[in-house]
């Protein structure tokens, strides 16, 4: 029997890649990276423009918002919850930014208003779910509608044009092929990873998702953890709102449902189980890149826009089926 004392044995019983690849569970665990590589190869062959630096740069910029939302959603889903209001919260943040900008508060204050107004929605979610014991699905379905309504009411249903030089820099600036948006998204991802896997809080998030009863028996304040993940989700939706306003050039009270579905899809692709307890950050980020590459590739190939939701749906259902073979 292998025991702890046999420290001279090789670090882990990690079989070589070839041997691993023979098991279904390997494909299930690595669905997102394998899918991404597969898509890149297929689109690279089919479309001459797909792998040009210009297109890669564009894809990465386009992926930024989804990456941020996926990291946010990952925290919530790890606790076994779900944030259906995440894209509506982003819209609220965008409208908040637009109104503050219109009131000539300047970029920094407007950004603060964006994040703060998003956090209000997150706080409502957290309180409803943690204190009011409303099911995550229902609570955030409610705030999805409330947030969408508020955005429409405050903006009077009209887009607010924003001519901010800071936002212009944010969309157009880059280091090499990496535009500022994707750099910001990667920083968010790195921070998210650090918080999830290197701090007490992150461990508590995983514990509450794994077994709330056991977490509580060990002195973890589960309601506080739940409120915190909804605040994180909303706060990051506020950050995503800045990227959205920067990209569109205006704060629009649009519904942005595609972002909601795609960020949940990215998290599932990334190997996070919707039942909670199993944390992943890198996986969902790769999932977000995959979905962006999929849309981009289909567009380049001239496939009608109508087919894109269909393709995204197929990929997600496939990934969900594959997760059945993940190692427990």
């Amino acid at each position, binding site marked *: 029997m292998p025991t702890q004392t046999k420290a001279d044995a090789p670090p882990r019983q990690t079989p070589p890649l070839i041997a691993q690849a023979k098991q279904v569970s390997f494909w299930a665990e690595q669905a997102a990276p394998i899918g991404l590589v597969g898509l890149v190869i297929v689109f690279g062959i089919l479309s001459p423009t797909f792998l040009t630096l210009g297109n890669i740069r564009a894809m990465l910029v386009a992926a930024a918002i989804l990456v941020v939302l996926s990291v946010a959603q990952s925290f919530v889903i790890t606790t076994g919850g779900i944030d259906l209001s995440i894209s509506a919260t982003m819209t609220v943040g965008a409208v908040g930014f637009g109104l503050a900008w219109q009131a000539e508060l300047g970029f920094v204050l407007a950004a603060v208003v964006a994040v703060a107004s998003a956090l209000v929605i997150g706080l409502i979610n957290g309180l409803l779910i943690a204190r009011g014991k409303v099911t995550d699905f229902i609570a955030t379905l409610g705030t999805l509608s409330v947030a969408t309504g508020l955005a429409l009411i405050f903006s009077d249903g009209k887009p607010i044009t924003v001519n901010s030089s800071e936002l212009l820099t944010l969309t157009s600036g880059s280091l090499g092929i990496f535009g500022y948006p994707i750099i910001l998204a990667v920083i968010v991802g790195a921070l998210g990873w650090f918080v999830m896997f290197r701090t007490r809080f992150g461990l508590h998030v995983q514990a509450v998702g*794994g*077994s709330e009863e056991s977490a509580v*028996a060990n002195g973890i304040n589960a309601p506080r953890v739940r409120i915190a993940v909804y605040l994180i989700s909303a706060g990051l939706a506020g950050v995503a709102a800045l990227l959205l306003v920067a990209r569109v050039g205006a704060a629009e009270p649009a519904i942005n449902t595609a972002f909601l579905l795609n960020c949940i899809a990215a998290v599932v692709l990334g190997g996070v189980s919707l039942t909670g307890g199993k944390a992943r950050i890198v996986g969902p980020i790769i999932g977000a890149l995959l979905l962006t590459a999929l849309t981009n590739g289909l567009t380049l190939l001239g496939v009608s826009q109508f087919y894109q939701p269909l393709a995204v749906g197929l990929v997600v259902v496939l990934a969900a089926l594959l997760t059945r073979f993940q190692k427990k």
Partner: protein
Amino acid sequence: MHTELRQPSSPTKDVLLEATDIKKSFGGVHALKGASITMRRGEITALVGDNGAGKSTLVRCLSGIHKPDSGTIRLDGEVINFATPNDARKQGMETVQQNLALVEELAVWQNFFLGRELVHGPFRTLDRKLMKKTAADLLKNLAVNVPPVTSKVRRLSGGQRQAVAIARAAGWGSKIVIMDEPTAALGVQETAKVEQVILTLRDSGVSVLLISHNFDQVMRLADHVWVMRAGLSVAQRRTSESSGDELVALITGAKAN
């Protein structure tokens, strides 16, 4: 330490923990109808009773998971009101819950330190190295087949899980360790090891509350035994003045008290 420790049931200053008239209902279920128990300093106290008698509920009241509807708990003579399990731990009370309170998706070392993780550095990052090492050291004394501390609890056998939960409770240098059926799923060797751990704890001055359905074990280990029936404490005995047969009679009600 006092030398007149062996005096039969008289409330003395040797009483470390005293729970009096604890009541707890869940909706219409009256799990505890006024249960009482005392634990003497440095002794192993056993708590026995049929399934559903309310033993685990009493344990959960003592360890801060449930808030009793009424009744008082005194630790060292002082009335305590634990709002959370962490309050109990801070007062030096550790518990092995009957359900073990492990998170299956987390690794052994993460479970070991759950709720009181060690951190280091300016960003208060988890001190993973130290926690893994400490967990491995504590576990080594207990389990026969020591699981690697990095493996998920989900992958452990029932006995290994139990060893993890017991080592976790025993490892903190506490005043009181409560064990709710700690050997229920264990094989012969593991049971012997756990019994050894219980005795070692007692010898190092820790007071142990042991819930068990194994009367041989109770007679072998405990100094004092409390009997519960239908949410009430119905009798207490020094084990030196009782027998397994008498305990059975008390539990079933064949003998009143």
